[in-house]
């Protein structure tokens, strides 16, 4: 029904109003059957659960579960992760009262689902006992108000991908601090290339950088939210990147889109501050640069501080209305902790395991030809351990990212300051949250 709104161009006025309205009507009808339907599985009873996810290769892990658990079958449905289409689908399904039993939900989108009462609190089913199996900060990402609302799956500890061949040819060291990064950017620019790009549309990336600088954009205090997007650490990050953009030391291309891939292939852009899962994107889209890339730790604000951050990451969440929440949670825990399952997920390229022991001995834990024989994931393993655990996301993430894209693009186009842009975003986010009927104030 989303596409019907889109493709109804040039239809009659009447028809257009109807499609626009049906879209809302379908998504708007009641969700009366929440919760009441959950039941205990009788021994020997066969059940089937639906699971919405998008990471490549997850079908293999689900197949393995189905083979091992003939009575508890999981039916995987792939959803599109583009432009938050998956969340539109999930929220619509929740509203319409026919959500899946389980779905992949990114860490940053969990509070949005809490607001809609979309997720099952899992400590009732023993989730709190699973805490020790997961990396500390990742576990904290699924805990809200003392409740456990999902099972961690994967994350994106950050580091710096760089072209070792060009760096050494141009006599550039991998930058240890952000000051070094700027100096390196100047050197690289003199060679006609760019050190990196500033992607205005990547709010979560910028959040990662602010996270590293010590920002805490959201926290709750009692029944009120405190928003600190417009804060000292964020301002420092915003000013730094604005400086690079104004001096034309970085491109402003959107990353993970064809223009950027072509810039990687032609060595126009020679490094990328990114998450661990960036490895697959580089090797998959610039295959001819094989052997020339390396990974270095993220540049630091204070030399040797070892501060890290995260970009991306998902959970497996049980949706309200799931008929068998216990079995759903058991599956989610198995999916994200069983070594064989993790192996299959890693092979598919799902990111960085949330399970504590997921990395050791896996295929990530060995030298890579693409990265010139470097055991590059050691960098990310250290990065994952150094991520600040106190970071929380707000309840309007998708809208926040949109605001950020709009404000930063405006700033780039009309030369307004990036710090003002972040101020604008904070105001908009607070207004959004108030519209949701929440108590909120600037921290």
């Amino acid at each position, binding site marked *: 029904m989303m596409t019907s*709104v889109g493709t109804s161009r040039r239809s009659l006025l009447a028809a257009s109003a109807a499609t626009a309205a049906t879209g*809302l009507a379908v998504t708007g009808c009641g969700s009366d059957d929440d919760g009441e339907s959950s039941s205990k599985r009788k021994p020997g009873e066969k059940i089937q659960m639906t699971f919405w996810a998008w990471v490549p290769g997850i079908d293999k892990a689900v197949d393995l579960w189905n083979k091992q658990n003939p009575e508890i079958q999981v039916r995987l449905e792939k959803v599109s992760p583009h432009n938050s289409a998956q969340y539109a689908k999930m929220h619509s399904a929740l509203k319409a009262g026919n959500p899946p039993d389980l779905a992949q939900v990114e860490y940053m989108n969990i509070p949005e689902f809490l607001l809609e009462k979309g997720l099952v609190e899992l400590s009732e089913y023993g989730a709190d006992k699973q805490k020790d199996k997961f990396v500390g900060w990742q576990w904290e990402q699924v805990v809200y108000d003392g409740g456990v609302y999902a099972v961690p799956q994967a994350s994106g500890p950050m580091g710096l991908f760089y072209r070792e061949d060009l760096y050494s040819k141009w006599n550039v060291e991998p930058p240890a601090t952000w000051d070094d990064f700027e100096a390196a950017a100047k050197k690289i620019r003199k060679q006609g290339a760019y050190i990196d790009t500033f992607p205005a549309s990547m709010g979560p990336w910028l959040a990662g950088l602010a996270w590293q600088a010590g920002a805490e954009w959201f926290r709750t205090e009692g*029944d009120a939210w405190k928003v600190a997007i417009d804060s000292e650490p964020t301002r420092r990050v915003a000013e730094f990147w604005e400086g690079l953009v104004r001096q034309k030391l970085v491109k402003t291309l959107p990353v993970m889109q064809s223009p950027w891939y072509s810039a990687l292939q032609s060595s126009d852009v020679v490094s990328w501050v990114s998450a661990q899962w960036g490895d697959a994107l580089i090797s998959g889209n610039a295959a001819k640069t094989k052997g020339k890339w390396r990974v270095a730790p993220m540049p630091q604000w204070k030399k040797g501080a070892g501060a890290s951050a995260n970009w991306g990451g998902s959970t497996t969440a049980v949706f309200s209305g799931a008929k068998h929440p216990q079995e759903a949670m058991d599956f989610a825990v198995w999916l994200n902790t069983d070594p064989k399952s993790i192996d299959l997920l890693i092979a598919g390229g799902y990111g960085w395991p949330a399970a504590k022991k997921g990395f050791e001995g896996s295929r990530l834990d060995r030298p890579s030809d693409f990265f010139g024989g470097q055991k590059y994931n050691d960098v990310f393993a250290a990065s994952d351990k150094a991520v600040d655990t106190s970071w929380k996301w707000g309840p309007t993430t998708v809208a926040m990212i949109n605001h950020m894209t709009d404000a930063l693009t405006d700033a780039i186009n009309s030369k307004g300051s990036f710090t003002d842009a972040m101020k604008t975003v904070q105001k908009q986010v607070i207004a959004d949250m108030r519209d949701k009927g929440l108590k909120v104030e600037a921290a």
Partner: protein
Amino acid sequence: MARSRLHSSRNRAAVGFLLPFCVLFLATFIAPICYALYQSLFKVERSGALGLGGETEVFAGLSNYTHALEDSQFLEGFARVLLFGVVQVPVMILLATVLALLLEAASARGVVFFRTAFFLPYGVPGVIASILWGFLYVPGISPFVEMFHSAGFDVNFLSEGNLLWAIANIVTWEFTGYNMLILISQLKAVPDELYEAARIDGANAWQVAIRIKLPLIRPALVLTTVFSIIGTLQLFSEPLVLKPLTGNIDTGYTPNVHAYNEAFQSNNYNVAAAEAVLLALVACVLSFGFMRLVGRRGKVGDE
């Protein structure tokens, strides 16, 4: 007696034929509109920071409408599509008219081929057309950008200033042939005797086109223009598809995109419903306004 019985059985038959239409009309047209109107008058209130304390739907009066009308992005979106329409619609209709007149006048071979060729883009779904053109716009991939570049011009089709016209180009490409076909079909309906009479009176081809053909296809011109005005207000898939390729398409680029984001990205269904109602109203006012405008002028001309 016999006549009235015939009448009533005919009526019954008519009702029988109309019933499926009426049911569908009510279910798919009237009901959703009522539901959208209803939704636009409510809002959700929550308790607790995470909303875990529960939510209630409360009557909001017109606050969703004021919310929408106070949103500068939403209003800018309207201004943008209006600017778009003022430029793109006349260009496209003019182009379609010229093509229709040419193809109708030409007696040479290839007319059918050209007619089909011009109509073909309409068969390409809007999303696909946008992806296709997107690749022709993106620097680093587009042969056009490359061509301009080697000729010494630095063109960026997706820059803030050019973007709207890059989209106008896609829309024109998609719909010119479609409008042309409507105009041609009306031209076909003009009896040959009229042309013959004109020729006997000494009118040349140009005069026939201006004095006879154009006035006679007036209804088709009005129709295609109204469709185009509505289409402009509905602008949706093109900006949505191009969005990832450029940072310059914001959340409120067009009113439709704004309502979509409000509903499916921010989960504010009530505000989105209000915006959809406002959009429908504006479309209504503009298309009926246009019809009245040309209708009145037509009458003045007749007198």
